[in-house]
């Protein structure tokens, strides 16, 4: 029985590792599903919800962009999918109150930049990113 070994790693820790039956996520080319015996592929991930289907049920993670690599070892009948993401968390671990607060902060920052009309690109961008992250978390948690 071919296996799909999934590793979800962030720079600060390995978030999850284990055998799965499918990995579902979204790259800049669109949604995709990785099944065991998938061919070797490297791609990017756009911020979104990543799902891992295991024998015990489905796990869901929120990730904020990264890459994935699939490697197949035909001799061992094993496929390894490595997910490299800057920040990610289990959907069940999301702190809704914190995300709400982050969203409010980001919205306030955006409003302030708009009022001042002084468009510092970097500040604007980081506020927009923060807002997108907060909204993504909230959307996933609901």
């Amino acid at each position: 029985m071919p296996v799909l070994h999934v590793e979800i790693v962030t720079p600060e820790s390995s978030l999850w590792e284990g055998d799965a039956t499918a990995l579902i996520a979204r790259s800049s080319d669109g949604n995709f599903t990785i099944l065991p015996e998938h061919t070797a592929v490297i791609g990017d991930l756009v911020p979104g919800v990543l799902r891992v289907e295991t024998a015990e049920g489905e796990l869901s993670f929120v990730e904020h962009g990264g890459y994935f690599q699939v490697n197949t070892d035909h001799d061992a009948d094993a496929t390894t999918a490595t997910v490299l993401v800057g920040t990610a968390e289990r959907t069940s671990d999301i702190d809704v109150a914190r995300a709400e607060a982050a969203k409010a902060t980001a919205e306030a920052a955006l409003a302030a930049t708009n009022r001042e009309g002084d468009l510092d690109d970097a500040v604007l961008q980081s506020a927009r990113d923060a807002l997108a992250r907060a909204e993504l978390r909230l959307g996933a948690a609901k």
Partner: protein
Amino acid sequence: MAGGQERILRRRIKSVQATRKITKAMELIAASQIARAQARIAANRPYRDGMARVIYEAAKSDPRAAAKLLGTPDRVQNAVVLSIVGDRGLSGAYNSSVLRATERLVAQLKSDGTSVQLITVGKKALAYFRFRGLDVQQSFQGFSDRPTFSDAREVARVTAAPFVNGEAEQVIIVYNRFLSAASQQVESRQILPIIVHEEAAVDTKKDLEGYTEFEPEVEQLLGELGPKAIESEIFTALLEGAASFHTSQQRAMAAATDNADELGRSLTRIMNRARQDAITTEIMEIVSGAEALRERK
């Protein structure tokens, strides 16, 4: 009177012992931080290795698209130098060795006719370069003890910007590499253009090399990969810098504690002698006074 000297010595011994208490505490704190910093380096390794594999595969499959992002440029007119040190001192040669290496590198680049933008991490760097009249483009501080990935991302954004905009052809990082608890060394290394680590290939099956598919196309992927890869590189450097800092501080404080012990011992010895001298003198005075009285009888 000789008792005055004894009092002065007693006061000095007390102050040495108080200093020893501080250095000992700092030594123990640093020692506890080393283990944590090392654990964080270990936790970062899978991500770094994964990143290296992705870059390796991408570079292998489309060398032409990768050319801009990889390899050492022949002629560098503008370079960015990122120097990573600590926020605090009392850590032996940790800060100064990195700063000196940075200064040397900048001087060498300038003598080759390259204009240099200097970016620093750590409070100590800013003071050092300002004193020497070197222009620091931007400096970060406040997280060198326990850097997080979002700190690294912020540093990377600023550091990579000139390269991404085409204002600089090379980005070099100077930091303290953590080889093991017993050995750290200052390293200056080019982080942009990316240098492909050949070791990354070890994990990849040889017969599969070059058969990897890409989604999106390699060209598009590589454009994004550059800035991402240096986030990871800088994060690793920050983590190794923090671990080196704690190691260095632990060693420096252990030496300071030993020194305080030694100083306390020798001061105690001197004080005992001074007290003995005072007693001897006093006895002499009493005895000679008694003698004089007896003679007069």
